[in-house]
């Protein structure tokens, strides 16, 4: 089913090819370098991951994956993603909606704030939570008094993950919504729709592919985050270890098959994300490019 809406966007693509004026050999060298680079730094590690994971046969592989600690790490990772991704969808959509469709004071500040997680090291993000919620932290006393445990527990991991992943959805949607302007929303309002109906029937469908794309990236990062989560997790086996953390632990214990088996799942997730991302870009490229062009 070819959605007709793609057609209207097609002119966007054209200008690109005209810019390519380099001679053939130069192009070959450039492309060769790029591919060699990709092969060494991306493809090779991927092959190594799967090779090591299956080094002792499929039996050892499945056994490694079914150990209780590994299973709990997988469960925790899924749980963290299941909480942080929806929250960031809500946050991302609201932030993008506010920034793209309304004028208000502090808009530029909010836009900068959204980019913050991209500009600070994840470890710092994690440390901020330690400073806030740790025993000696700002809120440490108060939380202890109220019996709240955030640090070295699941809530801390979720918070850290939300922090590092919150730009993904918002950044994808803001330029897209800005480009589309207010026209459709005004039309819906003039036809009697209330704010919620306008959002649900008009705004959201207009950005759905961009949103899906953002969610995909957000999810990949939520499951793969290491730095920030490592700081707040406490590395309690079977309790606060996510998959990336678990990989590190297994590896440090010289359990290569175990480490690479879990790593292969993460690599698999990356591959699936990549394929979906490519498919999305192929079909709804122009819409997503609008967001990229920012």
């Amino acid at each position, binding site marked *: 089913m070819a959605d007709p809406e793609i057609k209207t966007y097609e002119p966007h693509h054209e200008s690109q090819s005209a810019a390519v004026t380099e001679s053939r050999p130069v192009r070959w060298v450039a492309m060769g370098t790029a591919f060699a680079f990709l092969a060494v730094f991306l493809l090779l590690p991927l092959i190594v991951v799967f090779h090591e994971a299956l080094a002792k046969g499929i039996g050892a592989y499945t056994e490694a994956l079914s150990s209780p600690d590994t299973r709990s790490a997988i469960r925790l990772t899924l749980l963290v993603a299941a909480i942080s991704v929806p929250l960031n969808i809500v946050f991302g959509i609201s932030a993008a909606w506010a920034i793209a469709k309304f004028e208000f004071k502090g808009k530029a500040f909010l836009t900068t704030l959204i980019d913050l997680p991209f500009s600070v090291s994840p470890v710092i993000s994690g440390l901020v939570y330690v400073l806030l919620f740790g025993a000696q932290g700002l809120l440490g006393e108060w939380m202890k008094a109220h019996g709240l445990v955030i640090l070295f527990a699941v809530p801390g991991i979720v918070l850290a993950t939300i922090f590092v992943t919150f730009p993904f959805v918002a950044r994808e949607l803001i330029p897209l919504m800005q480009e589309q302007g207010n026209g459709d929303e005004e*039309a819906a309002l003039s*036809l009697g729709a*209330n704010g919620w109906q306008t959002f649900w029937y008009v705004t959201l469908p207009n950005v759905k592919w961009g949103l899906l794309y953002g969610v995909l990236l957000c999810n990949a990062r939520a499951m793969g985050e290491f730095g920030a989560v490592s700081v707040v997790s406490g590395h309690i086996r079977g309790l606060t270890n996510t998959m990336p953390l678990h990989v590190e632990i297994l590896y440090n214990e010289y359990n290569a098959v175990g480490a690479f088996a879990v790593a292969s799942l993460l690599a698999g997730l990356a591959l699936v994300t990549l394929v979906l991302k490519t498919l999305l870009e192929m079909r709804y490229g122009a819409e997503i490019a609008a967001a990229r062009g920012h």
Partner: protein
Amino acid sequence: MEVRVTNVRKEFERFPALHDVSLDIRSGELIALLGPSGSGKTTLLRLIAGLERPTRGAIFFGDEDASQKSIQERNVGFVFQHYALFRHMTVADNIGFGLKVRHGATRPSAQEIRRRASELLDLVQLSGLEKRYPAQLSGGQRQRVALARAMAIEPRVLLLDEPFGALDAQVRRELRRWLREIHDQTGHTTVFVTHDQEEALELADRVVVMSQGRIEQVGTADEIYDTPNSPFVYSFIGESSSLPVKVDNGEVWLADRPIGLQAPPHAPSGEALLCFRPHDVELLDGCSGCIAGTVAASRRVASTRRVELEVGGERQRVEIELPVDHPAAQKSRVAFRPRRWKLFPAS
């Protein structure tokens, strides 16, 4: 529905887009807002719709103060310049949208909505295109869908922003006639914005001429064309020529000569601007009491000849129109007197 705009002022971040605008729109009337780019036409239309709120002043729908109401409550049909059709909805869903989002008992059944949509598609002569998406329609067809969508909610007022702006001349003319027919059939009070004077004069019952955030004149096509009430309207509607003159002793003078025109009794003495239509002039042979000038340029325009004359001591240029076969068209000096003209205070 009668619409009254009373002393409305609109500022955008201190920039006044409309100054103290008042306008009475009669029920069932087709009225055009005409003016150059940036004159505030869209702003006035959006204020009536409720897409903007006036900085000062009020807008009445009948006796009720609509300025206090949101756009949803005003129940107006707005057709946007670029249509703003919902691209992910079919034509039928676009048209039915306004009915679908109604609440409770006022919301028709899905079947009824579908029936209304195809009825409206018939009205706009697009039957059979229910299942198409906006991207699969031509510009003119999109325009019609946008109109059908706006009419589906049975609006009290229909507002159209440059409805034919993005279409080519041929389609424009067709749609223009068609819009008039639809209006006569449905009787909606309709306001449309245009910067095409031909469109405004041909289509509208009355034309509102705007300039720089003000209404210059409101009237029928004849009134606007025959008795413009400002130099701006004179020059904006149709062709016009103007000359700086002096009024003295009840006579009109160009430089140091009277030009044979009696100033109206109430005209004050002093500097003034004489406006007339280039084609509405009387050619004279000799000259005592006329405007005489040397031909500076001459060009053929369809069946007439446009002649640019340099007149007066300051060699003011003024344009008049001659029949192609008129002997004066060959001469290097031409004398004339405007047949119909108007004096405005010099600005």
